[in-house]
C-alpha cells in the first residue's frame, strides 16, 4: 500500500472518530516506511486529537530532528509552540 493510500484510510478512521484504528494503521505503516515525514506528521496530529499531547510533542520533535529542511518544519514548530502554551 502506498503512503497516500494509507493516509486516505487514516482520514476515513479519523472522520469517524475511530482514533485508535487510525493510530494502529499509522504505526503499522511506519514500520513499513520508517520515519516517513507525512506518516509521522499525521501521527503527531492524531495524538493531539487523542489529547495525548506529550506523545504528539515527541513525534513533532522527531520530525524537526529528521527533516530540518522538510516542508512540515514551520508548521510543526507552530504546533509544538501551541502545545507548550496550552501546558503552561
Amino acid at each position, binding site marked *: 500500500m502506498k503512503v497516500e493510500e494509507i493516509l486516505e484510510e487514516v482520514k476515513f478512521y479519523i472522520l469517524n472518530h475511530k*482514533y*485508535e484504528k487510525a493510530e494502529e494503521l499509522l504505526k503499522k505503516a511506519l514500520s513499513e516506511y520508517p520515519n516517513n515525514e507525512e506518516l509521522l506528521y499525521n501521527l503527531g496530529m492524531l495524538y493531539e486529537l487523542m489529547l495525548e499531547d506529550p506523545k504528539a510533542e515527541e513525534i513533532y520533535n522527531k520530525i524537526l530532528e529528521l527533516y530540518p529542511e522538510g516542508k512540515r518544519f514551520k508548521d510543526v514548530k507552530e504546533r509544538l509552540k501551541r502545545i507548550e502554551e496550552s501546558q503552561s
Partner: protein
Amino acid sequence: MQVAIIGLGRFGSALANILIEKGHEVIVVDKDEKLVQAFENLAEQPIVGDATDETLLRSLGVHNLDAVVVAIGDDVEASVLVCISLLDMGARYIIAKAENDKHAKILKKIGVHKVIQPEKDAAKSIADHLMYPKLFEKFNVGENHSIVELKAPKMFWDKSLKELELTKRYNILVMAIRRRQPVFDKRGEMVGYKEEIIAPPSANTVILEHDVLVVLAPNDKLKEMEEWK
C-alpha cells in the same frame, strides 16, 4: 484589561509576566528598583515606590483599573494597609495574596474581593492530582461535590447518554463534553483541530473516542471514576 500589581516578588513577577504576554496593560509597583527594572520595557507603567504611601496609590487611578493585585505576602501590615487604601479609593476588584490563614482572615474581613494563598492553593491542587491523576481539573462545589474533567472511559465510547444512564447508575451528571474535531484543508489534508464544546449535551448525544467529559459528581464517587476503563 488594565491591572496593577503591587509587589514584585516571585508571585507578583510571574503574574505580571503572564498578563503582559497575554497583551494586558499592566502597572507594576515595588519598593525594590531592581525588581521594577525587569519590567521597564514591558509594563505599561513600572513604578518604584512604597505602596503604603497613599499619594502613590492615588496616582495610579485605581478606580479606573479592572483589577489590583496586592502581592505583598511577607509584610502583613503593609498588605492590609494597602488593601484598606485601595478599598477607600474605590478599587473595582482587589485580589490579595495572603501569607497564612490569619492574614487571609483579616483580608477577607476588611472586604478584599478575592484572597489567595498561592502555596496552599497549589498544594491542594497537587494533592488532588495525586489522589485523582486521571481527572484533569477539579473544582469543589460545596463540601461534598466536585466538577471534574475526565477522559471518557472506553466503556462509554459510541454510547448515548440515554443508554449510559449515568445519573441513575452513578449519581453523576455530564454537564458538557469537550471534543477535538479534526480540520482538513481544501486538498483533504488534516491541518489541525478545533475544540468543540457540547453544552449541555442532550440525552441522544453520543460519547466518542477521546471525548473529555465535564462532570458534576459527589466526592465519594471520584475514586470509582478513576478506575473506569
